[in-house]
């Protein structure tokens, strides 16, 4: 009986300690989770603003203005060549480089 009582007391103390530890760890983890959730929310808000800023800066009217300043414009017919004529040009260049040799 004495042994049983001693064991029971020991178990009580051990359980109390374990429960306290678990409780403490849970609180710490809960705080950490809350902190991270808050950080995620803040990060998502920042990302939303950055995304909007980026879209605003990349809007076509702004890009078009810069493109025009650089002398760029829509593609025109004269800027393209057919496969056949480019092949002919390639052959002509090969002949010319052969002549140089």
């Amino acid at each position, binding site marked *: *009986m004495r042994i*049983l*009582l001693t064991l*029971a007391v020991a*178990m*009580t103390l051990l*359980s109390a300690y374990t*429960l306290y530890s678990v409780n403490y760890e*849970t609180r710490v*983890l*809960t705080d950490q989770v809350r902190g991270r959730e808050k950080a995620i*929310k803040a990060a*998502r*808000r920042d990302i*939303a*603003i950055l*995304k*909007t*800023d*980026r*879209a*605003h800066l*990349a*809007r*076509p*009217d702004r890009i*078009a203005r810069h493109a025009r300043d650089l002398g760029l414009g*829509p*593609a*025109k*017919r004269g800027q*393209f060549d057919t496969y056949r004529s480019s092949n002919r040009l390639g052959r002509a260049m090969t002949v010319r480089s052969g002549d140089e040799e």
Partner: protein
Amino acid sequence: MSNGIIITPGLADGALKRPVRSADVQQQAQAFQSERRAARIRSLVAVALMGLAFMTIAAQLVRLAMQGQTEQRISISAPLATAFARPDIIDRQGRLMASDIVMHSLVADPHVVLDQKEIADKLATVLPDLSKTRVLNAIADKTKRFAWIRRRLSDAEAQRVHDLGLPGLDFRPELRRSYPLGRSAGHILGSVNIDNKGLQGIERYLDERQSVEPVHGPSLSARPPLRLSLDVAVQFAVEEELAEAMRRYSAAAAVGLVMDVNTGEIIAAASLPGLDPIITDEHFDKSRIDRLAGGTYELGSVLKTFTAALAFEGGINQATRLDVRQPLEVEGYRIRDLHPAGRPLTVAEIFLQSSNVGAGMLALQVGGQRQQAFLEKLGLTTPLATEAGTVAPANLPGSWGDIETVTISYGHGLAVAPLQFASASAAMINGGYRVKPTFLRKTGRTAKPTERVIASETSHFIRQLMRENVASTRGTGWRADVAGLNVGGKTGTAEMPGIGGYNAKSVIASFLGAFPMDKPRYLTLVCLFEPKGTKETDGKITAGRNAAPTTRRIISRVSPLLGFLPD
């Protein structure tokens, strides 16, 4: 035990204590035994209780572990939604068009405010457009504990207010809808109210399809973005060219559209003057109405595309010549051409020379009932709605007699929304299939139209006519031609109704275009409202002089963006 003397155990060195009688000893022994039994029972009970307690704790731990709950929440009342978290809206390429952001709103606790005048004066220094009277009124009642001062400040403004250090003021984070492209596609996107609830356009569609989450506080939506069929780059090019056309031809308004003829996807849709989704006043400005879908107009000769298709479907031989030299007299009305041909014309020539008399004669030959049924089959006269809202219903004539049949054949007497006209025209170009216009990106099997409304031969015939109308200088649309892109189209100049009849100086100049005509993929529509004659147009206001060159500029800009390079 001898001599009736008992030696008490535990006494040292045989020392005797007081003598005890045998009866007493027995009684004491019995009492000791019963006390020992009672003690044992108490111990057992205590152990049992402790065991029970341990078992209860263990059971509770197991229960919590099974439920997976780490936090118990107590809610006294359900929180009321104070805002609506909306998903992003993106274009077909994934570029952002609308998004929620968190901004700070300035609030006051009038009960805590010490000096009302100081607050009004100091706020005016950092928020100059904030009315002092309004601030004073908001915080006048000391019994109140809450008052809005200014909703949704920028970060810089909020910081400046914070730096004032005024007691009684506080900030409350709130969701705000942001449109990073400004006015671009403003009519399509629509708008939201102060609580972020959709009111018009695609924003309203988001609410209707329950993609919007009611939230308590500034929580951003985690739902996937809504992908539109619009292409931001094409949209901008169309808007810019329309704005340039309005300036160039001194037009009061302009609409433009680029549509995929096979899927009905609208790649760009603009109505100028445009509107900014966040400027509420502009939504009530009549001059900024969405003329593309919100208004109906008589569009003029662009409807001859349908008349030519009707004639072809009605079995009129292409080689048949109709005598268009004299005005057409119907029910007491005389229909005449602006430039009479002076000779009989074939169906193709009627289309190319845009003869009203010829179109009227073709329609009369086929008959009013068949014309009505044909236009209904194309979807021109039936109710239409898109994700951006209901399209204004067509204004049909009260009765569909001969005169109506004739006037409708060349685009008068039937007023339709340009968007509805464009979607009906798609069948003329895509091989004969009816498409439903959509502002959502379509993919896979759902993208292919299945309802045939005209024969593929008819569509082929119309494509040929449209191409010739642009490629040949005999046509009215040659100014829309883009070298190497095989553009086709039809002009339309419709006088606008005014007091006492039609006004010849006030017209809607339209051009229905398509490219590339050997295998059309995209349809364009440009309508200029009340353009003026200029030096460039030799003082003329016909569509061939203004809407056609505007279409040329639009197609030359957007075709590379859509994957078509000049041959």
